């Protein structure tokens, strides 16, 4: 029963949050800390601090954490499935019918207007990363360095990112 409830709660949250993980956090807190009392506030904040620095989307990390806290490995499995299911099903539908309205003039013009917004969103993404993770001048220098390298070496970004990570160990405070 707890498992089903876990799945259902995460499913609900997955449906109503637009725009990714950060938007999910207040809802998660209200559901699991305030309404259900399954997790203490302190624990919840600890989860967020860890979820932000571990690999992968924050929403998924939170689901795995909360699920494990409540019902072990199976709990985290159910929570993850719950949070993934809505977006999986919706995108499946969109992808299935996308071909049909691709030739539609209104759709084309809509996409024409969206292209500049994407550039703005990418700039906004930089702003968000910088605001959250950068302290002091050194990260900016590393970022500038990586930008210069990206202009010259186009083969494998993973190498460059690993290099900046290793550089980070030595130069960051």
């Amino acid at each position, binding site marked *: 029963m707890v498992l089903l409830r876990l799945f259902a709660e995460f499913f609900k949250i997955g449906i109503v949050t637009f725009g990714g993980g950060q938007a999910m956090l207040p809802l998660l807190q209200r559901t699991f800390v305030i309404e259900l009392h399954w997790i203490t506030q302190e624990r919840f904040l600890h989860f967020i601090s860890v979820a932000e620095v571990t690999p992968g989307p924050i929403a998924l990390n939170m689901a795995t954490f909360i699920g494990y806290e409540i019902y072990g490995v199976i709990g985290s499995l159910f929570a993850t499935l719950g*949070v993934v299911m809505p977006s999986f099903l919706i995108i499946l539908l969109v992808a299935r019918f996308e071909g049909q309205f691709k030739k539609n003039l209104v759709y084309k*013009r809509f996409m024409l207007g969206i292209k500049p917004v994407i550039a703005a969103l990418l700039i906004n993404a930089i702003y968000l*990363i910088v605001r959250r993770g950068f302290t002091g001048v050194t990260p900016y220098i590393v970022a500038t360095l990586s930008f210069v390298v990206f202009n010259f070496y186009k083969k494998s970004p993973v190498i460059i990112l690993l290099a900046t990570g290793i550089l980070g160990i030595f130069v960051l405070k």
Partner: protein
Amino acid sequence: MLLMIKGEHSQIGLRKSFILITLNALLKTFTRKEKDKNREIYKSQGQEHLRITKKPTSKIKETILLTYDFFLIGLFTIGGGYAMIPQMRQTFCKSRKYLTEEEFWEILAISQITPGPIAINMATFIGYRVNGFLGSLFATIGVILPSFIVILLISIFFINFFQISPVKKFLIGILAGVVGEITYIILEILKKSGGNIFYLSIMFLSLVELLVLRVNPILVILIGGFLGIILGKWFEDKNGSS
């Protein structure tokens, strides 16, 4: 006794082969060829198109490749959705050639305005493009697995590897690298837009909405799309992409 020795031997063999496989995978990732022989992207009338020159070897192989690609993407991105974008673009537009860049940005926009984490939406969408339902299923599993495994390990062993100072510095270093990468991509996109007035003014408007007025990104996308529908009539020829 004999059994025990045998068991030990096979264990060592297993460990060795595991290390070999990991090394091999890492090596392949780093020396990934720029060109996929099965597909090519060509330009005509100022627009990029995708052409499949040779049928892919097998659907199963392609699906496994897709899972592997998304697993790596999930593993190498810290701090959620947008840090994944450069890696995805490189893998699926440049190396594998599953999508043209324009299609990629369209998929990103759709992923932003539909509910759920952006990374999951992108994985499902790209997976569907490559190999239908099966592709989307395995792409999503691939992108989920790294964070699932890492968080489970942290929860089970109560140690937080990622709070250790050098590891944290390593991760922030990678994030700084991602910032450089995104900056590079933004400049590339701007170069492609060719200083079009319609493009630049909508971008500026969106920036004001996002950074100054703090409007929700979904609303910003919808406003841009709406302006495109109204004003697109006068600008679509010049842009050459509609």
